[in-house]
């Protein structure tokens, strides 16, 4: 599995940073997986948005996530070759422990060895423009 390491120059595309999601990528770049949660009713908002869909409060707290989850679905994009990757990555939907899905990559595992529901944990990889994004690897233990 070819992944960017700190010794190599990153080639991965950086995230598009919008005002409403800047907190997510800023924390990811610091190696932290976070989500916004409604200050009024504790509903998680993912993908981020400025208003709670349940109580319509615009107040929110940035809270850390456990970084643990399970594999929901996984694919390997072959054609055309994705920008920023020497070898096709494993793109996956991860169901986070907190109950919502996130698109990411699986690393440190062969495509053929991935199974539905397998436990994974977050780690971070660098991108162009000195940012980091969360990716997932098989959970230890």
């Amino acid at each position, binding site marked *: 599995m070819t992944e960017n390491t700190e010794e190599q120059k990153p080639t991965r595309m950086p995230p*598009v940073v*919008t005002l409403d999601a800047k907190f997510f990528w800023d924390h990811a770049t610091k190696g932290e997986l976070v989500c916004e949660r409604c200050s009024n009713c504790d509903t998680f908002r993912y993908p981020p948005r400025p208003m709670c*869909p349940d109580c319509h409060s615009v107040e929110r707290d940035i809270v850390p996530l456990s970084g643990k989850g399970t594999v929901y679905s*996984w*694919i390997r994009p072959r054609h055309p070759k*994705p920008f920023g990757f020497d070898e096709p990555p494993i793109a996956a939907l991860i169901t986070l422990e907190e109950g919502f899905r996130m*698109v990411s990559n699986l690393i440190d595992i062969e495509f053929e060895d991935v199974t539905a529901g397998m436990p994974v944990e977050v780690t971070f990889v660098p991108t162009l423009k000195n940012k980091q*994004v969360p990716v997932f690897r098989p959970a230890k233990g």
Partner: protein
Amino acid sequence: MSRSFKEAAIAGIGQTEFSKASGRSELQLAAECSRSACEDAGIDPKDIDGMVTFTLDNTDEIHLCRCLGVENLAYTTRIPGGGAAAVATIYQAMAMVNAGLCNNVLIWRAMNERSQYRFGQPIDMNTAFAPGGGTGSLLWCMPFGAQTPATWESLASQRYMQKYGVSNEDFGRVSVVQRKYASTNPNAWFYEKPITLEDHQNSKWVVEPVLRLLDCCQESDGGVALIVTSLERARDLKQKPVRVLGACQSIPREVEVISNYYHDGDLAEMPEAKGTAKRLYEQTGMGPEDMQLAMIYDAFTPQVFKQLEAFGFCGHGEGSDFVKDGHIEQGGKLPVNTNGGLIGEAYIHGMNNITEAVRQIRGEAANQVDNIQNALVSSGMAGAVLARD
């Protein structure tokens, strides 16, 4: 007289040739297909008073009006959601006519989507979350190598495969059927070019383990247009009217187009198509058993399975057997995408599947199905029942 939801009709259809390099501007394609639809209906283009297209269409309303000599436009609107807009254009036009706001609604979609830009290739990061695309969360996919429509579709459809034990070969049977239809449709890019399941299985992987090249729709250049008017008026025009018995959109909570991973439901299902089916069947008092044809948005083969199931033509997870048993073929229980669909005929963003339903109902299709009274047209987030008058 009072109006009801049964009084709009499609009076005319038009199109350009479908190619990989049109050699002219998208505006010209839009103007040519619009002119053809007016000629087909028997109306003067200058009398168009309503216009509907996709947010993603590049042709400006005013430029098109200047080509057509439109004299007094009353209403314009655009539909979000990429290809999900396709059947929603019929819904809008029906509503405009039924509200008494317009007499001659032009729907058009024109694209040089092969020669000028590539819908199937990784998209520009800055358009990944443009308003109106209906796919605002695509930016959450891009850094992870999920950069094309095929990858976004596959993240959900791989779950479908897991849940129901469906293989890529199962998906391939949809392509084989549709390419068979295309092979006898002179308008189709793949006219006289049928494929076998072996050809499908030998085509290269686009996204493992979901989509091979022959599971994907084409990238095409071309334009398609329709004229919608009231049923009573359509009866006085040149063609046999095709009634719009009902049409609707459905966008359930947290649902978005294609990168549709954030709703609470199982990704093996399409909640938007289930919502469309429910609303459409309630609106028309009809059910799947009333349809003799289904034209289903087929950007990728798994979407055909999921929509067949959402509209109740078979149970969840039964799409594979429904196709394997021959039900979607000529002479089957429910012929599907009889022009070859977006896979076999052309990808004019779903609109050429609607014009095929019109041809079938008029009795003018290349692969004519016998005794069609009602046809379902679906683009997932929108659907319509078209019917013979």
